[in-house]
């Protein structure tokens, strides 16, 4: 690889250079890569490109790493090749925000070392226990203890670092966290055992210390893996959202660049059917755009030179050029970002279940340990005995349930959701979702699919529908698509007319022997002023027919609303659309509580008012919903939502089915109850063993066995989640 960096996406025509030395690497997020076949297609499609020397797909991360020669092909060629093979791909946005702290690979390394040490020390300890009082002499026992120390000391020093570091940071900030008693127990147990070993005593706890470390590390690793995966999915989503833009250079040539690399002032071309990649001002072109994602309005809007358009707007009718403006200057986007930043502050204060438990648990453990030590001293025992019993208390109380069972439950729940196309974006989202008791829906794009449906199909004669759909098949305008879909449903097939011309901003026309037939705006088609029909067909004879549209509801919207009510949740509808449209939708889905013409600030106000009594789940997709999503206790958005909206949401679901919302709620509440069960198991275990440990009856053997059983028990309980889910699935 060279240090020379080419502008990604630039297709240069410079002469070829020594290829091997000038290679760049890029990581692409690939949507819908599901199996080995997909993986092979992806790698094959990329490797076939000239200039690509290596392509390696990662199925778990849904990414592909490509090594290529930037002089011979650009990032857009790679993306183009994948889209030709049927995969949507986009270069990863290099945010450069490497998370501080321990990565999951570091944890796995610690788990391996602790596991090795635990197994070997346990082997030696079992020999000592079974030989004690039998045929093992003191010299052999001492030798085994020394051997254990030899393994335990480096293992604890290496594998204990994540806990020691976190405990040290907490103490420096004058706080207590769960890692403080853990570190204390491990260090004291190891140190005390080392001291006892030197004295030749049999009070040696190396096995307990290392096993404890091992189980706790497994829990940490699971937790970290969930975070890493949620983060990776979120990054993939963002990269896929941004996509590529067609930039126009000063000399008029076009090049494809990743949208997030666009600079203010740059000119870009937006093709028909493409989403506007960045906020901008229209330089040329008159046409219609779908701003549903931004305003929640379902009807297309007209644009012309000088109008501002926002990222996420869908171009419907004619290619236009934009001058990119800085996002910070944009009133709408900056307003929405500001609202979001304010709204999110409330959420940052949320404390995870495990953290809340630790808040109570950590001081209790310290007090119990100290009380045991003091109690034994007062009763006249030596300091060694007192310390040994205090360590036993620390080890016995160490929170395997907190450290292992909650992450295990969450991993099981998250994998289930991932499998069903529901992406978890924040690690504590499951916990917050379980608390939700009120659901607020947005209308356009959430309850509906965000595309129109022909309403008066029954009134339109077959031949007119056939002729209109033949014209409409040539366009990507949502109205045309709706006409074609209606025709397909009624007539089975759709004839596609040749020589259709598209008049920007007006509609489609075709010359026939009898005259011109048109499909388009009322005025252009010579229709009377009739507000109810938004699209008209004018036959060659001059007669015109109006088409009326309504929004297509998601197929299972009403059913989902009923199920949510059945689960005991309240349901509301808040939309930025006209009152009439909102009312009709509310009645159709059976939502009693609705409100139309709500702007983003009102949505937040409404949510704030509700959140006094309820934990609100917000489901929305529009840019106008983004602040509300951030303000809600928990939020879900469909994968078709605007970029910034998905960023704000905690969950993103793929596909057309709204039932994903119900599924997510069910899994979350199941996970919540399993986590609580695990706490109960852990508490019972502590209630039995802590008094025994304080009284000095817990031997190292007993402590090790009890700890392992409780850990295994809570893990098995957690795994039940995936099993139960499968039975419930239809």
């Amino acid at each position, binding site marked *: 690889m060279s240090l020379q960096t080419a502008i990604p996406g630039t297709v240069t025509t410079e002469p070829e250079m020594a290829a091997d030395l000038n290679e760049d690497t890029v990581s692409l997020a690939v949507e819908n890569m599901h199996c*080995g076949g997909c993986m092979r297609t992806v790698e094959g499609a990329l490797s076939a490109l000239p200039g690509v020397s290596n392509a390696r797909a990662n199925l*778990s991360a849904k990414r592909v790493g490509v090594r290529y020669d930037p002089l011979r092909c650009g990032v857009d060629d790679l993306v183009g090749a994948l889209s030709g093979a049927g995969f949507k791909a986009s270069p990863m946005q290099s945010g450069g925000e490497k998370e501080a702290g321990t990565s999951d690979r570091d944890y796995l*390394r610690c788990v391996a070392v602790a596991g090795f040490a635990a197994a070997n020390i346990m082997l030696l300890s079992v020999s000592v226990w079974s030989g004690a009082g039998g045929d093992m002499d003191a010299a*052999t026992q001492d*030798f085994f203890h020394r051997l254990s120390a030899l393994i335990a000391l480096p293992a604890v020093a290496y594998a204990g670092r994540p806990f020691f570091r976190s405990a040290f940071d907490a103490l420096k900030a004058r706080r207590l966290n769960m890692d403080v008693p853990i570190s204390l127990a491990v260090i004291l147990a190891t140190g005390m055992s080392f001291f006892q070993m030197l004295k030749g005593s049999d009070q040696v706890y190396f096995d307990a210390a290392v096993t404890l470390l091992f189980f706790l590390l497994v829990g940490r690793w699971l937790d970290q893996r969930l975070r890493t995966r949620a983060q990776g999915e979120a990054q993939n989503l963002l990269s896929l959202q941004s996509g590529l833009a067609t930039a126009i250079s000063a000399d008029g040539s076009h090049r494809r660049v990743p949208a997030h690399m666009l600079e203010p002032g740059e000119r870009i071309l937006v093709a028909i059917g493409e989403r506007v990649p960045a906020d901008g001002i229209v330089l040329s072109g008159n046409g219609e755009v779908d701003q549903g994602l931004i305003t929640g309005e379902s009807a297309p809007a007209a644009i012309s030179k000088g109008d501002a358009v926002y990222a996420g707007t869908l171009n419907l009718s004619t290619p236009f050029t934009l001058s990119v403006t800085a996002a910070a200057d944009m009133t709408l986007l900056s307003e929405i970002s500001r609202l979001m930043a304010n709204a999110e502050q409330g959420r940052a204060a949320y404390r995870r279940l495990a953290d809340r438990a630790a808040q109570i648990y950590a001081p209790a453990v310290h007090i119990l340990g100290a009380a045991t030590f003091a109690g034994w001293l007062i009763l006249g025992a030596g300091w060694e005995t007192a310390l040994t019993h205090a360590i036993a208390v620390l080890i016995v109380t160490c929170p395997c349930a907190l450290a292992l069972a909650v992450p295990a439950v969450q991993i099981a729940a998250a994998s289930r959701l991932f499998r069903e196309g529901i992406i978890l974006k924040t690690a504590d989202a499951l916990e917050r979702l379980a608390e939700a008791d009120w659901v607020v829906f947005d209308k356009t794009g959430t309850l509906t699919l965000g595309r129109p449906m022909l309403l008066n199909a029954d009134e339109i004669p077959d031949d007119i529908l056939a002729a209109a759909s033949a014209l409409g098949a040539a366009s990507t305008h949502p109205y045309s698509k709706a006409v074609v879909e209606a025709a397909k449903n009624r007539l089975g097939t759709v004839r596609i007319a040749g020589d259709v011309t598209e008049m920007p901003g007006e509609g489609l026309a075709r010359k026939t022997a009898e005259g011109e037939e048109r499909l388009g705006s009322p005025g252009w088609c010579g229709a009377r002023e009739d507000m109810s029909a938004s699209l008209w067909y004018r036959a060659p004879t001059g007669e015109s027919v109006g088409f009326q549209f309504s929004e297509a509801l998601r197929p299972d919207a009403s059913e989902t609303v009923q199920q949510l009510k059945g689960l005991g949740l309240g349901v509301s509808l808040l939309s930025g659309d006209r009152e009439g449209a909102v009312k009709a939708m509310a009645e159709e889905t059976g939502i009693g509580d609705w409100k139309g013409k709500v702007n983003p600030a009102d949505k937040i106000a409404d949510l704030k008012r509700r959140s006094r009594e309820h934990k609100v789940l917000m489901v929305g997709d529009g840019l106008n919903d983004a602040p509300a999503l951030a303000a809600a206790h928990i939020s879900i958005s469909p994968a078709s939502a605007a970029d910034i909206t998905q960023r704000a949401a905690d969950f993103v679901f793929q596909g057309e089915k709204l039932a994903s919302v119900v599924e997510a709620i069910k899994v979350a509440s199941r996970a919540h109850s399993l986590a609580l069960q695990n706490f109960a198991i852990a508490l019972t275990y502590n209630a039995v063993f802590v008094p025994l440990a304080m009284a000095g009856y817990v031997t190292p053997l007993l402590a090790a066995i009890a700890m392992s059983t409780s850990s295994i028990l809570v893990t098995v309980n957690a795994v039940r989640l995936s099993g139960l889910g499968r039975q419930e699935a239809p």
Partner: protein
Amino acid sequence: MTALAWLIPVALFLGLLGLAGFLWSLRSGQFDDLEGAAWRALEDEDEPD
């Protein structure tokens, strides 16, 4: 008891060998894509490299 003198070092050495093997495979990225690796095992063709 003399058996212990060489059996235990041998056992520990073998255990360490396993640990080293695991750490090596982790470092060389063999755990990066477990799902993909499962599918790659079924492929007939050699990797294009």
